[in-house]
């Protein structure tokens, strides 16, 4: 029962909000309640999964390979948990940053539908159902992105919509061929059926179809162009939740299908993933180094960080998968926080462009400090969470003698530090030219609401960094579960292989 709640709850509250469509002020309260309830449920789901093993639920009592199964293994429950943390943060942050124009057009209901789509994608155990959740997530993200209707937003939305629809069409074709090949859509059953097909070339071809489809969603090289074209256009709260969660749904799907279903031809598929990871890291970080706009720099850094996550998948050892899982946890929190801070900077100085910014540290030292925590964590400075995440994937690379990718990863993290310092120098350190008059005056309540989620996420980053052991253990346990796919199959199909 608890398995359906992360999906049903946001949906229910979205409907409630739509009943009070005109009264958009009530949306704020309902949205907060919903996000908090989601957080509670996600925590209990995670504790349940961690203590009692993989949880499953077959919808409508159709037995496993025929009906749609919801599965919560450690990876799914961790993702749902982080989603709810980010959702809660974004809900608070939205209160003081989203203008009433957007609220009138249903910003909060859309946010909840987006969460429903994301949670559905994480929890489903059926590959076609995954497609459906992707679409739910996409359509609400389309509207959230275009809401407000500024020229920039519309242009960004067109690029985002077109490329994501292309990806969906490819995903759908892949699902179709996979069904023709194995005669099932249940992921656990697919894993069983495909492992009995002896080294079929067709399976490899389908796996590449999935790699391209999920590669577009997760913004891997060379399929990332929609991301830097669109993520800097919507309000900061929307960018933040997109940056934190949407591409990671792609990474999650890659992680799921390439540990569970497509493991017949590892030396081929996972080598491709590894090469693409290296290129993703490099292009992302070079893109970021050449940009001079706060959120565009951060957008390009999403791409380069995706490379680290898929690098762990490409190496495909236990330590590497541990690194990937840890990296996802670290990255979602840090990246969302950086986008939150970019919004604060915009509030206080009226611009996202680095050349218009300056002198912020002198006036608001707190913002500077709060920026440094996630920024240095992103670059991998010990003892913050990013250091451990990078350490794990790089150690995994050294262990299997993949020195080239290790060199790339180290080089990229150096350049990450460079562009974080660039933001610091330009926005916080250099002398301000006080020509910009777009500043907003904030009330005390709004200021608290603005900083609360940022401080919360910064504290989580520091906690992960200083108290790494429990997080590492969970990530290791998750990797163990992902690599021993029999556990998953057993839990879903209820048979011992």
């Amino acid at each position, binding site marked *: 029962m608890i398995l359906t709640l992360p999906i049903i709850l946001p949906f229910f509250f979205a409907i409630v909000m739509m009943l009070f469509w005109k009264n958009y002020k009530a949306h704020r309260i309902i949205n907060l309640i919903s996000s908090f309830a989601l957080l509670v449920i996600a925590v209990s789901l995670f504790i349940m999964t961690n203590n009692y093993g993989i949880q499953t639920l077959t919808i409508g009592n159709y037995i496993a390979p025929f009906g749609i199964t919801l599965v919560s293994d450690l990876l799914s429950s961790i993702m749902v948990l982080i989603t709810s943390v980010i959702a809660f943060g974004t809900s608070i942050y939205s209160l003081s940053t989203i203008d009433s124009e957007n609220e009138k057009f249903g910003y909060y209901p859309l946010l909840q539908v987006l969460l429903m789509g994301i949670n559905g994608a994480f929890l489903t155990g059926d590959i076609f159902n995954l497609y459906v959740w992707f679409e739910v997530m996409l359509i609400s993200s389309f*509207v959230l992105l275009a809401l407000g209707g500024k020229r920039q937003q519309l242009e960004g939305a067109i690029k985002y919509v077109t490329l994501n629809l292309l990806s969906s069409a490819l995903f759908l074709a892949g699902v179709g061929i996979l069904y023709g090949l194995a005669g099932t859509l249940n992921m656990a059953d697919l894993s069983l059926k495909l492992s009995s097909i002896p080294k079929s070339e067709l399976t490899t071809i389908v796996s590449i179809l999935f790699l391209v489809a999920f590669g577009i969603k997760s913004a891997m090289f060379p399929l990332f162009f929609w991301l830097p074209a669109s993520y800097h256009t919507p309000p900061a709260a929307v960018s933040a939740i997109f940056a934190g969660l949407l591409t990671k749904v792609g990474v999650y799907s890659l992680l799921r299908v390439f540990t569970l279903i497509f493991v017949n031809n590892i030396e081929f598929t996972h080598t491709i993933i590894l090469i693409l990871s290296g290129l993703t890291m490099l292009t992302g970080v070079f893109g970021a180094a050449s940009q001079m706009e706060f959120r565009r720099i951060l957008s390009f850094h999403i791409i380069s960080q995706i490379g680290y996550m898929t690098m762990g998948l490409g190496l495909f050892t236990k330590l590497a998968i541990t690194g990937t899982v840890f990296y996802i946890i670290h990255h979602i929190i840090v990246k969302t926080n950086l986008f939150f801070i970019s919004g604060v900077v915009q509030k206080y100085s009226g611009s996202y462009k680095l050349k218009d910014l300056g002198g912020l540290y002198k006036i608001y030292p707190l913002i500077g400090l709060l920026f440094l925590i996630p920024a240095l964590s992103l670059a991998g400075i010990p003892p913050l969470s990013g250091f451990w995440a990078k350490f794990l994937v790089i150690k995994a690379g050294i262990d299997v003698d993949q020195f080239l990718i290790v060199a790339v990863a180290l080089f990229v993290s150096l350049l990450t530090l460079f562009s974080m310092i660039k933001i610091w120098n330009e926005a916080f350190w250099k002398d301000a030219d006080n020509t910009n008059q777009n500043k907003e005056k904030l009330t005390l309540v709004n200021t608290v609401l603005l900083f609360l989620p940022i401080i919360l996420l910064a504290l989580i980053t520091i906690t992960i960094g200083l108290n790494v052991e429990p997080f590492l253990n969970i990530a290791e346990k998750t990797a163990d579960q992902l690599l021993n796919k029999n556990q998953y199959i057993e839990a879903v199909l209820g048979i011992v292989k």
Partner: protein
Amino acid sequence: MDFLLVLIIGLLYTAGLYLLMRKSFVKVIIGLILLGHAANLLIFLVGRTTKGNPAFISSNGLIQEPFADPLPQALILTAIVIGFGVQAFAIVLFKRTYQSINSDDLDDMNTTDSMD
């Protein structure tokens, strides 16, 4: 029949991808729609086509082999509905953009990718 479907699917994919690479909004949308159709037909085909034998159980409780697999058709129905919604949204988005920038040329939409 199967061979014909293969040809049509190939044609739809080719036309869809070609149109996606054009500059005009309308052509891009038509390209997306064609790609959706191609994927739907592909599912239909790889789900094996069976002529004239739906998966109905007759009054004696038996089912006549070989019968058509109903699942791919259910998948296609779902995909059509989703595709319909998404395409409708895309059309409105393109129209709204056209009103905003007064051009239907994708090359004019470069403000989000410019450097400053």
